[in-house]
């Protein structure tokens, strides 16, 4: 599965970083860096990704299977 990010919708609430710090990071400016852009996720990373997607308060993250 892959995660797609709607960067226009992202407001930097940081819930994704809380749930999946290996995948998502807010930089010093509060902008989102998604470390696995375009990559397939499996196992633990996939589970963390699902939690992060569920946690985004503005639904800026989507799962693509």
């Amino acid at each position: 599965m892959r995660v797609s990010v709607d960067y226009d919708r992202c407001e930097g609430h940081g819930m994704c970083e809380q749930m999946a710090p290996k995948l998502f990071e807010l930089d010093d400016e509060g902008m989102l860096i998604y470390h696995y852009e375009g990559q397939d996720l499996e196992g633990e990373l996939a589970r963390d990704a699902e939690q992060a997607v569920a946690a985004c308060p503005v639904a800026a993250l989507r799962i693509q299977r």
Partner: protein
Amino acid sequence: MTLSATPPVFDVDIFADEILVDPYPIYKKLRDAGAAVYLAAHSVWAIGRYDDVRAALLDYETFSSARGVELLEDLANMGTVGTILGSDPPKHDMLRAVLSEKLAPRALRGLRDFVDERAEAVVSEAVARGSFDAVTEMAQLLPVGVVGDLIGLPKEGREVLLDGADAIFHAFGPMTPRLMERLPKVQAYLQYTREMLDRDKLTPGSWGAAVLDAADEGRIPVEDAGPLMSAYMIAGMDSTVNSIGNFVYLLAKNPDIFAACKADPTLVPKAFEELLRTESPVQGFFRTTTRDVEVGGVCIPKDSRVMLCFGSGNRDERHYADPDRFDLQRNPTDHLSFGYGTHGCAGQGLARMEVPAAITSLLRHVDSIQLNGEPERNFSAVVRSWSSLPVTVTVSDAN
């Protein structure tokens, strides 16, 4: 899945005072009656299960905000219709962009010290009295000061904001005597917003000035500037005040939670998320269906008013284990209290700054807090809060 021929009818009036005291057992009955039920007392549908509420919030095309998010469409037409709360994308997104420029957590980073200082000032002054009303002498003061300054409002005359917000929140529910008697407050508040939409009144560089800039630059239509500034004011006051009050009540009634948070203030943000879940300041908002929609086997017809019950979804045993238990370790970041999706609360970053700041200051200043008299519940249909919380504190020596 076979669609049920008749909708499950729920005949409890969920907005009656005796239910507002403790709505949770009724919410459970509502969830168990069906994924969507028809509330006979108010001729409106209600969705109470977590998954369905969330799905509806995400599906703004089917569950539209454009006819307002109040129960009554007549009140909606004078209320949220056409505002950021009461519009769908693309109009909504254009308005949201102006607010989130200032309210996105990345924009708030520079404000932490300001918020902490204000929290400290408000809390220490209240605590010094020993006995005080945690709502009227503490909770209400912080957001009025913080948000008032950020919007750039003059210091004098802000009293109208809290009364206005309270009155407007009543207008989200049914027509009641309490709402009727508050209508003059709505008028006074609207008058105030009209007067404040003025560069001579607003502090340069403030959020209010930014709304005027957006209008001047054509990023939003001129007629949307007033309602947008109003959105800052209403949403930024009432719900935050209510949350602080709910938190103080929690601490006063639960010495173990008080002790845990005092010993380890890093627990305060987690406690806040769990408190938001168990006692959502906003219990629900409304939508209108733009098509026939099937929810859990029940068909809601097109053009139906539907209540999305955040307070119920947050207690849904289908999603949260032991949902009625306040669990300091749960940290439920997926609660529904800030909504979800495109209308997800734009100010949640500020709320997550203000409320923990107030509570952390309180914990630093006192060794105990108790209720000192009967608390008064705020009987308002979609709101869960206290209007008065008389408390006594013992002031900490280490200050």
